[in-house]
C-alpha cells in the first residue's frame, strides 16, 4: 500500500521581484500514511503552508514547483499543472482552511455548498446529494443537521462552520485531507472538539491528514508524526513522542523551549540570543531611578481597585437619539491589583476581558461601578492617573502609527507631559527607552515598517514606558507573535517589572502564558469573574468547574502520547 501523500525533496520558488528567486520550500520530504495525522509545524514564514498548497495543487502564479516529487496515493503530480492523472482535487484530496468565517460562500446554503461538490464529483442527483450531505453533517457532529442544511453560513457559529468545512472536505471520501491551521481561529473549547473530530476521522475512516499548524500543543494532542520546518527546510522529522521528548536539532530544541508550559512555572524562558546586555541593564536602572523620583508606592497600598464594573455596548439607531438593544459585556467585575504584582485576566473570546482593560485604560466609559487608582477615581480626561496607567496592545502592526518615526512616537508622551524640558532631552530619553527594550537607539530615526512583529512590540512597550507609568495594561501582548518571539517579549516584560517595580495587568486567552507570567489570576466568563486566586493555586487545584474545563481543554506539549501516538 502506498502512502496517502508522499513528498520528496520538494522545492518551491517565487520570483523576488529583483530578478532572483525566493525559495519558500527547500528540499522538504515527508510521508503521510493512511489513517495517520502528520503535523507540519514551524513559525510564520517557515514555508509550511506552501507545502500544503503544493500538495493541493494551489501554488499561485508566479510561484512554481521547481523540484522534487509529490505523490498522492502513489500517483505523481505534474509540477507544471499541479494535477496528478486520475487524482481529482476535492474528490481525492480534501482541504480545510484556517478561517471558517471566510471559507464558506456567504450567499449559498450549506446544502448547496456540500451538494455542489457531491454532484460534481460523484454525479449524485439532488436527492442523493441531500442524503449524503445529511450523513456528513451527522458524522462531523452538527446538531439538528436537517435544519442546518437550509441554513446560510452566517447563521452558524464559528465551530459549526469549521465542521461544515470539514464535511465539505470529507464529502467524496478522500484518501488525503490537508488542514491548514484548522483551529487557529477558534476558542480553546471549540478547538478541542474539532481536534477530537479530526483524530476520530483519521482513526475511523483511515484518511491521511496533513496538519499544518504553529501550535505545539495541537501537535502533541492529535498528531502521530511531526515535521518541524524552519526557513523552508525540514529540520527534524519523527514520531511526535520522540521529537517532543528529545528534540535533536538546535532549532527544534529552541522552539520547544519557548513554548510556555502549563504544568509548572519557570523563572524565565530559555531563548538564545536575547536582546538584554549591559546597555539595556543601564537604561533600565535609569528608568528605575526616574520612577523613584516620582515617589514610592507602599506595598500595603492598593494600586488599582475595580469595584462592580459594568460596561454595556449598544447598537446604534438610524437616527440621532435612537437607542439600540444593549449587550452587557462586563457585568459586575471587582478586583484589586497590588503594587509590583502581575495580575492576570483570562477567558475565551467574548468573555469581557478586553473590555475591562479598555475601561481601566480610559478607552471606554463604564456604565456602572468605579475604578480607583491609589484610592482616587480614574478620570476619563487628564489627571495624574491618566499618565500612570499605560497600555500595550495585541496587534504589533496596527499599534504603531505608520506615518511617524519611532523617535517622534516615543517623544510625544514625554513632551506632552513635560517630562523633559527640551526636545533634545526628550530625544535622549527616547534613546534610553529603546535601549531598555533591547533595541538600538538608531531605531528612533526609522519608520515602523522597518521592524518585525517582535521589534514592534518592543517599541510599543517603550512607548508605554515613555509616560513613566506605574501600571501597564497588557492586552494579549504576545498573541500575534511566534512562540520564540513571544518568549523574548514575556522575558522582557518580567525584566522590566523586576527592574522598575512596575505593575502589570496581563490579559490573555492563553492559559500557559498566564501561568508563566502572573502572580494572581482571575478567570472570566460571560462578563463575570468566576474564580480569582493566586496563580499556582489556581492552576494546580482549580476550584470552579469552568476553570477546570478550560485547563483540561488546552492542548499541551507535555501531555503527548496520550492518544497512543
Amino acid at each position: 500500500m502506498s502512502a496517502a501523500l508522499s513528498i520528496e525533496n520538494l522545492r518551491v520558488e517565487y520570483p523576488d521581484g529583483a530578478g532572483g528567486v525566493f525559495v519558500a520550500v527547500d528540499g522538504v520530504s515527508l510521508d503521510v500514511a493512511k489513517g495517520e495525522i502528520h503535523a507540519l509545524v514551524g513559525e510564520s514564514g517557515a514555508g509550511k503552508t506552501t507545502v500544503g498548497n503544493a500538495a493541493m495543487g494551489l501554488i499561485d502564479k508566479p510561484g512554481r514547483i521547481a523540484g522534487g516529487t509529490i505523490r498522492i496515493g502513489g500517483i505523481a503530480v505534474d509540477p507544471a499543472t499541479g494535477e496528478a492523472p486520475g487524482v481529482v482535487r476535492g474528490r481525492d484530496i480534501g482541504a480545510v482552511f484556517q478561517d471558517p468565517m471566510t471559507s464558506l460562500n456567504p450567499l449559498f446554503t450549506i446544502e448547496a455548498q456540500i451538494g455542489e461538490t457531491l454532484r460534481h464529483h460523484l454525479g449524485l442527483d439532488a436527492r442523493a446529494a441531500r442524503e449524503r450531505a445529511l450523513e456528513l453533517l451527522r458524522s462531523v457532529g452538527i446538531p439538528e443537521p436537517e435544519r442546518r442544511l437550509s441554513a446560510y453560513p452566517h447563521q452558524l457559529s464559528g465551530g459549526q462552520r469549521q465542521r461544515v468545512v470539514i464535511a465539505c472536505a470529507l464529502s467524496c471520501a478522500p484518501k488525503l485531507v490537508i488542514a491548514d491551521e484548522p483551529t487557529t481561529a477558534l476558542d480553546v473549547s471549540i478547538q478541542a472538539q474539532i481536534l477530537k473530530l479530526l483524530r476520530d476521522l483519521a482513526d475511523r475512516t483511515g484518511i491521511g491528514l496533513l496538519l499544518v499548524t504553529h501550535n505545539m500543543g495541537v501537535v502533541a494532542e492529535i498528531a502521530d508524526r511531526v515535521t518541524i520546518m524552519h526557513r523552508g527546510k525540514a529540520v527534524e522529522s519523527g514520531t511526535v513522542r520522540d521529537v517532543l521528548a528529545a528534540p535533536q536539532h538546535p532549532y527544534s530544541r529552541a522552539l520547544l523551549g519557548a513554548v510556555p508550559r502549563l504544568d509548572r512555572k519557570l523563572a524565565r524562558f530559555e531563548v538564545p540570543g536575547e536582546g538584554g546586555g549591559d546597555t539595556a541593564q543601564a537604561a533600565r536602572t535609569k528608568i528605575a531611578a526616574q520612577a523613584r523620583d516620582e515617589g514610592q508606592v507602599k506595598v500595603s497600598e492598593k494600586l488599582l481597585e475595580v469595584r462592580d464594573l459594568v460596561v454595556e455596548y449598544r447598537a446604534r439607531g438610524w437616527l440621532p437619539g435612537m437607542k439600540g438593544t444593549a449587550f452587557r459585556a462586563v457585568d459586575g467585575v471587582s478586583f484589586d491589583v497590588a503594587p509590583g504584582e502581575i495580575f492576570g485576566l483570562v477567558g475565551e473570546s467574548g468573555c469581557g476581558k478586553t473590555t475591562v482593560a479598555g475601561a481601566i485604560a480610559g478607552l471606554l466609559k463604564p456604565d456602572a461601578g468605579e475604578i480607583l487608582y491609589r484610592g482616587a477615581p480614574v478620570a476619563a480626561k487628564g489627571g495624574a492617573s491618566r499618565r500612570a496607567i499605560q497600555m500595550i496592545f495585541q496587534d504589533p502592526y496596527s499599534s504603531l502609527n505608520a506615518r511617524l518615526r519611532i523617535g517622534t512616537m516615543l517623544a510625544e508622551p514625554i513632551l506632552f507631559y513635560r517630562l523633559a524640558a527640551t526636545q533634545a532631552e526628550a530625544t535622549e530619553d527616547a534613546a534610553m527607552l529603546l535601549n531598555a527594550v533591547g533595541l538600538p537607539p538608531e531605531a528612533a530615526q526609522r519608520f515602523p515598517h522597518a521592524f518585525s512583529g517582535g521589534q514592534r512590540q518592543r517599541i510599543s512597550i517603550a512607548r508605554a514606558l515613555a509616560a513613566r507609568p506605574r501600571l501597564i495594561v497588557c492586552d494579549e501582548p504576545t498573541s500575534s507573535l511566534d512562540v520564540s518571539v513571544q518568549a523574548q517579549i514575556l522575558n522582557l516584560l518580567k525584566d522590566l517589572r523586576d527592574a522598575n517595580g512596575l505593575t502589570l495587568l496581563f490579559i490573555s486567552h492563553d492559559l500557559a502564558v498566564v501561568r508563566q507570567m502572573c502572580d494572581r489570576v482571575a478567570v472570566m466568563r460571560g462578563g463575570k469573574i468566576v474564580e480569582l486566586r493566586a496563580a499556582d493555586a489556581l492552576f494546580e487545584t482549580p476550584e470552579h468547574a469552568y476553570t477546570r474545563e478550560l485547563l483540561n481543554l488546552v492542548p499541551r506539549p507535555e501531555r503527548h502520547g496520550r492518544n497512543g501516538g
Partner: protein
Amino acid sequence: MKLGRDIDLPFSVALAAAVAIALVLAAAFAPLLSPFDPTDIATYNLADSELPPRWTLDGDPRFLLGTDNQGRDLYSAILYGARVSIGIGAASVLTAALFGITLGLVAGYFGGAIDAAIMRVGDVIMSFPTILLALLVAGLARGLIPQASSAAWTPVILIAAIAIHEWVQYARTVRAATMVETAKDYVKAARVIGLPPTRIMLRHILPNVMGPVLVIATINLAAAVLTEATLSFLGVGMPPTYPSLGTLIRIGNEFVFSGIWWIATFPALALIVLVLAVNVVGDWLRDRFNPKLRGRE
C-alpha cells in the same frame, strides 16, 4: 520608470501625468502662449469669423485652429478656456475636500449623534446626481442673485454647485477610514497617553486617511471638469464672453450641421485629453491604494 523606493510607474501613466502637467502649465500661462486675448472683444473681427484651421484650404495663417462665429481665435480661446475649466475644477475639488475631510474626521472620530446628523444630510444630497444638483444651484442662483449670470459671479456659483455634491464623497470616505483607524491600537495608544482629540485627529489619523482622499481628489478633479463643461454646455455655466471649454463646445454645437466642425471639435478634444490624462493617473492611484488589486499586479 522608478520613483522612490518601490513605486513602479507604467509608461502610460507617466505619459498621462506629463500630458496633464503640460495642459495645466499651458492653461496657467495662457496669456503668454496665446496670440490673441479672447476675452477682449475689441480684438474680434467679424470678417475673420468661421475660418477653418490653418492647414486646410481656406485656412488663415493667423489662426492655427481657425476661428469661431465671432472671429475669435480658437487656439487662444481653448487655452483660456482650459484655464477657466481647470481653475473651476480645482477650486471645487479643494472646497469639497476641505469640507468633506473636516466633517468626515469629526463624524468618524466622535460617532453618535454628530455622525448621524452629518451622514443623513450627506445621504439626502447623494440621492441626487451631481449634474441635477448643480443645475438646480446654478438655476436658483440666477433667480436669487440678478447679477449671477455675470462673468464675475458665475465661477463662484459653479464651484459651489459642484462642491455641494462632491463633499459627501470625501466625508464618507474619510469617515469610514477614520472609523477604521480609530479602532486601531495606535489611536487607542494615543488616547491612553491622554492626547486631546483634535491632536489625535490631525496628527495621528489625518495622515493615515489621506491616501484614499488623494485618489478621490484626482478622480474628482476629472469629474468636476466634466460637470463644469456640462453646465456650460447646457447654458448655465460660463458665458460666451468668458468661455470655458464647455461653453466653446456649446457655441460649436450650433454649427456642426453646417459643416463647420472645428469650433466644437478642438475644444472637445482638449477637454477629453485633459480629463483622460487625469483619469489615467487617478485610476493608477486607486489601484495602488487598493491592496486587493495591488497583489495581482
